[in-house]
């Protein structure tokens, strides 16, 4: 009994402390160092922040280079599948253009009317300009759904700015480096956005599910939402401006699930906007 315990202790001690010929560091030393690093990354010292930014910059560029061949293969496959569907898509698009043209005139009238009314009550008006950025890495981890963008503090990016794709909200900046930044996607489990559901103007919260759709939380019990319900940002809390379209209800995925207008796995370019910077 005692000898088997001794064997166990020897084996464990050897595993943690013994170095083979070509090993520079013992396992125990590295484990202690990594615990020290986890502890440091929890602190917000200026020095650590700059080291982190340096490491981030180098790794993002390296990761972007390594991912390049895979990205090209994926793009080619997508191009091929789009090429084969082009005729059908063309017919659909023609029909859609006809419908949209008729609606456009109405919208122009309503937009002008809305602008005049906002001026009348003194509310801020936003234009749709922002900083265009390329997605360097679209890596989605088990725990975090985020994208790396090729614009950073050098280009005026700040934490909290909103990220749009074709005017649809897709995320928010959570980390800014000198030439790169990271945006958390609206599909992330930790993402909670105050929204308004139209028609009906119901206020609610849109939460990420970790999958490619979101979910409406904290809604009224008897609320009936169908596929015609569109989800916009409500502007509550001040983190997002009101009226940014996000997606539509799709109860086939899950009850009160929100299918995003943007395909979050296929984003190439985004627009980064800040609420303060976009006021007219």
């Amino acid at each position: 009994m005692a000898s088997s315990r001794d064997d166990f202790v020897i084996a464990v001690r050897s595993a943690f402390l013994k170095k083979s010929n070509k090993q520079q560091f013992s396992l125990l030393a590295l484990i202690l160092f990594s615990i020290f690093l986890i502890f440091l990354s929890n602190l917000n010292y200026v020095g650590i922040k700059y080291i982190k930014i340096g490491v981030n910059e180098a790794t993002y560029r390296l990761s972007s280079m390594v991912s390049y061949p895979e990205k090209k293969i994926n793009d080619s496959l997508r191009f091929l599948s789009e090429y084969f569907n082009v005729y059908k898509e063309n017919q659909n698009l023609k029909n859609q253009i006809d419908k949209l043209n008729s609606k456009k005139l109405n919208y122009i009238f309503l937009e002008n009317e809305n602008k005049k009314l906002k001026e009348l009550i003194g509310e801020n008006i936003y234009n749709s300009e922002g900083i265009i950025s390329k997605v360097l890495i679209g890596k989605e981890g088990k725990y975090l759904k985020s994208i790396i963008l090729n614009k950073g503090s050098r280009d005026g990016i700040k934490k909290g700015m909103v990220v749009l794709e074709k005017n649809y909200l897709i995320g928010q900046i959570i980390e800014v480096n000198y030439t790169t930044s990271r945006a958390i996607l609206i599909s992330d489990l930790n993402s909670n956005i105050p929204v308004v559901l139209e028609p009906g103007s119901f206020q609610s919260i849109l939460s990420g599910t970790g999958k490619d759709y979101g979910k409406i939380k904290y809604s009224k019990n008897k609320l009936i939402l169908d596929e015609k319900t569109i989800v916009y940002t409500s502007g509550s809390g001040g983190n997002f401006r009101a009226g940014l379209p996000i997606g539509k209800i799709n109860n086939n995925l899950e009850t009160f699930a929100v299918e995003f207008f943007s395909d979050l796995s296929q984003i190439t370019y985004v627009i980064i906007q800040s609420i303060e910077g976009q006021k007219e």
Partner: protein
Amino acid sequence: MVQKKIKLLNKLLKHFPLILLYFSVLNEFDIDVASLGLLSFNLPFIIIFYWSLKDPDYIGNGLIFISGILNDVTLGYPIGVSSFIYLTIIAFAAYLRNITLRPNVFKDSIVFLVALLFANSLNASILSFIFSIEIIFFEILVNITFTFLLYFLFARIFNYLKPMSV
């Protein structure tokens, strides 16, 4: 000329595990293959466990530690978490190496499963309790299952490659 080519090929094969580890850590395809739906596996875990068990001189502990840092940065996790998790995998492999007289892929895989469960639990606990990151346990379970099943395939491939790189 031919000798030079053979030398280069040998060098490449010798560093193949390290190249594959860094490629999988930096590339988008490594663990969470979202486009394939449920099929997701952790290639770095397989590489680290296999090579730490069979021949730790192929990938040094320090290099595995750095690959963990790169993984943290790419995935946006707090720095040091993946390194710590990778080192626990090495600890399991080193312990198994010390107590094993006759290596067997099935015995290895059982210890690998224990190491996987331990490492993923530790990872989820650190991210959830210390850094308040929400996690989906079902996805982790699927990831563990596929990583465990694919260990047999990768072990076979690595077994085949190992003598070639000597």
